[in-house]
């Protein structure tokens, strides 16, 4: 029986395997590139889109690709940028930080793109930061993050902590009580965010009664539930910076333990419309989230956008904050290119980007000197259909502060890229 593979058999199997791979290759969907409009190289502007299309982050990041592609389609349909069509080159970062850096290099060096739109996690952004800085190229980054960074080569269109976390904490203090329990996934964003929250609470008169982290993706949250019940027997505020699957376990077991949103309101900063669907609407009804944009924002721009998005990708799809940031940043970049006149002139586009305003779905946004945008802050409460009721919003747009003013090490620092003498980090009182 065990004669091993003979030469002839080997040839047969080999050719069969080769044939299989050919068939599979032919069957594979060639969605790697999206070319738009006619014209050879000189007539289009190449842009890179760099997100995870596979791996653990794909769930979230593919929605950003959808939003960016939609913006590019719209711009192309309306005559393009400076009369040129945009050609998107989509690369897969595969939820793997070295791959992100590799693909960023590829987009800049081989494809010669004018700009890269991309990244979600702070880890992936930090991995590509070096690539963009050494080549003096340009990345637009659409996700809320922990701040404490201000790169000349990155434009941040998500929220800085003072545009999401700080107003959320303030609102909770004013409306829900001053005893906080902090729950988060164990990596850079939740830990930095919770440092900020602790400093803020110390300054504003709240107390942190407990703090706990679980590994990303872990579902065993029983000890945390027990600790919350110990620390807050009569109810209190839970500030949630958990990401991904852990949220499901957390909210399921909170419900199982009889902790209702009335007594234990949870404020999340990483749970948007998309995540609500995944976690389960009935677990989340009554809880809160803080973002700059919700699908329920009532602006004419939002109505048009949601409609266009559903028409393109299906009625059952929802829009959310990171997607909106991804969408608006393409337009901000387009305006900067139109002002500077030449898409491939990185220096010129960068200078022109500062001060650009755009009537986005969330309202008017403006790019500041510190490469972050001024935007509204809103707090929403999950309702039965999985969308958010906006229960609070800032009166006006909040100016971004990448260097946090509650954390002692960065207090009093700011960032200004329009003035070469100030740069990414200068003391406010010295300037």
């Amino acid at each position, binding site marked *: 029986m065990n004669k091993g593979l003979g030469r002839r058999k080997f040839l047969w199997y080999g050719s069969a395997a080769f044939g299989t791979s050919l068939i599979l290759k032919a069957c594979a969907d060639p969605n790697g590139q999206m070319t738009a409009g006619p014209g050879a190289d000189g007539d289009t502007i190449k842009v890179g889109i760099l997100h995870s299309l596979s791996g653990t982050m794909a769930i979230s990041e593919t929605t950003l690709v959808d939003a960016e592609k939609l913006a590019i389609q719209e711009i192309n349909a309306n005559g393009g940028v400076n009369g040129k069509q945009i050609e998107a080159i989509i690369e897969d970062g595969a939820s793997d930080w070295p791959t992100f850096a590799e693909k960023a290099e590829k987009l800049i060096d081989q494809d010669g793109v004018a700009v890269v739109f991309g990244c979600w996690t702070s880890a992936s952004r930090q991995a590509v930061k070096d690539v963009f800085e050494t080549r003096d190229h340009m990345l637009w980054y659409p996700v809320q993050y922990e701040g404490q960074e201000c790169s000349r080569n990155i434009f941040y269109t998500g929220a800085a902590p003072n545009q999401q976390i700080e107003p959320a904490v303030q609102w909770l203090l004013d409306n829900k009580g001053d005893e906080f329990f902090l729950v988060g996934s*164990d990596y850079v964003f939740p830990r930095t965010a919770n440092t900020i929250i602790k400093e803020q609470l110390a300054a504003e008169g709240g107390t942190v009664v407990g703090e706990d982290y679980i590994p990303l993706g872990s579902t065993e949250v029983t000890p945390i539930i027990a600790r919350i019940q*110990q620390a807050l027997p009569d109810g209190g505020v839970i500030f949630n910076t958990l990401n*991904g699957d852990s949220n*499901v376990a957390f909210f399921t077991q909170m419900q*199982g333990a009889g902790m209702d949103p009335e007594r234990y309101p949870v404020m999340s900063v990483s749970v948007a419309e998309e995540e609500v669907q995944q976690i*389960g609407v009935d677990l989340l009804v009554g809880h809160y989230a803080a973002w700059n944009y919700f699908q329920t924002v009532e602006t004419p721009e939002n109505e048009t956008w949601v409609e266009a998005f559903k028409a393109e990708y299906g009625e059952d799809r929802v829009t959310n904050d990171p997607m909106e940031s991804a969408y608006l940043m393409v337009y901000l970049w387009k305006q900067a290119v139109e002002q500077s006149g030449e898409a491939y002139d990185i220096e010129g586009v960068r200078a022109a980007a500062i001060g650009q305003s755009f009537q986005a779905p969330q309202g008017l946004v403006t790019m500041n000197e510190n490469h972050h945008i001024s935007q509204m802050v809103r707090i929403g409460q999950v309702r039965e259909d999985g969308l958010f009721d906006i229960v609070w919003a800032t009166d006006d747009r909040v100016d971004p502060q990448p260097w946090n003013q509650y954390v002692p090490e960065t207090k009093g620092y700011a960032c200004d890229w329009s003035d070469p003498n100030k740069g990414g980090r200068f003391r406010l009182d010295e300037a």
Partner: protein
Amino acid sequence: MIELAVGIFNGIGIGSVLLIAALGLAIVFGLMGVINLAHGELMMLGAYATFVVQNFFRDLDAGDGVFGLYIIVALPVAFLVSAVAGLILERGVIRFLYGRPLETLLATWGVSLILRQLVRSVNWLLTIAILLFCALFFGGMWLLRRRPNWEGMKGWAIAILLPLSLAIAGIAGWAMTGNATLARPWFGPRNLDVSTPPWLRGGFELGAYRLPYSRMFIIVLTILCLAGIYWFFNRSDWGLRIRSVTQNRDMSACLGIPTGTVDALTFALGSGLAGIAGCAITLLGSVGPNVGQNYIVDTFMVVVVGGVGNLFGAIIAALTIGVSTYLLGSGALARVFEDINSLQFVAEFLRFFTSTSMARVMVFVLIIAFLQVKPSGIFPQKGRTAEL
């Protein structure tokens, strides 16, 4: 007093999740010596089966509470789905690799990757293509095998049938590509929500605390599984055969026990238990392609600490790990020492580990320390005998 009871319950709750996830692995690893890295993915299949059954019952429900019963049906379905998947895995891959642990390790890891990608992208198109291929290839082989000169033409038959079946399946798949409903993924890459049946949603009130029914359900389920396995191994004919093959494969074969069938059956049983575990964990979290990955390390930990080939060891190990994780992570242990003045430093030390991440670190350290003392686990295998 109530706090203590709640603490013990929670610890057992964590432990029973670990145990139900590790049971199948303990059988496969303990009895067959196969390190099955795809165990987590077999759990995932069970979880997806539960999701499908749930959807079926949701359609069936006409407001008369039938929906809540889905979990009763989901359990055997999840068992069967995972058992069949395990059977295919054993017949298709593992039986060629017995006695070669490293190759088994790599092969099952590969299978786990394939399974994870499969649930992400599976759609009608892919299913039809695969079924068509199987029907053509294995059907053709079955027909040809009845010919008297089968041995002589075996190589040729495979060489012709394989590319031919692949080509037909591929072309059929390609011809249907335009159909959007056929090409839509069944599950997709995103995590899906399985809603807990209404009767498992509440909890048993105990003072200021509430013991969730879903945890109790998992504990009861674990006990039932244990009882079932115990009965199967010690009271049934096939259990006897499995035990005899485990103890001495050659001798059993000489005595007429079909060892191949026994291997397949044991593997299918272990896989089926993974399916039940998958069904159980949908009560705690969501269903996603990576759900198995969250459990695979913990389950191996239970098996290694418990001692290979010993179910009783697995029980003790799972409960110990569960209770200690809870006591450390929730700070219950630290609070005990707080009350004693002379032991303040112990309380201080324990408070440092009072967080879920740090508790895990501490449990790992304890396990490593324990394995220094007893390298083969709580109940090491004695000689060639594997006890149950």
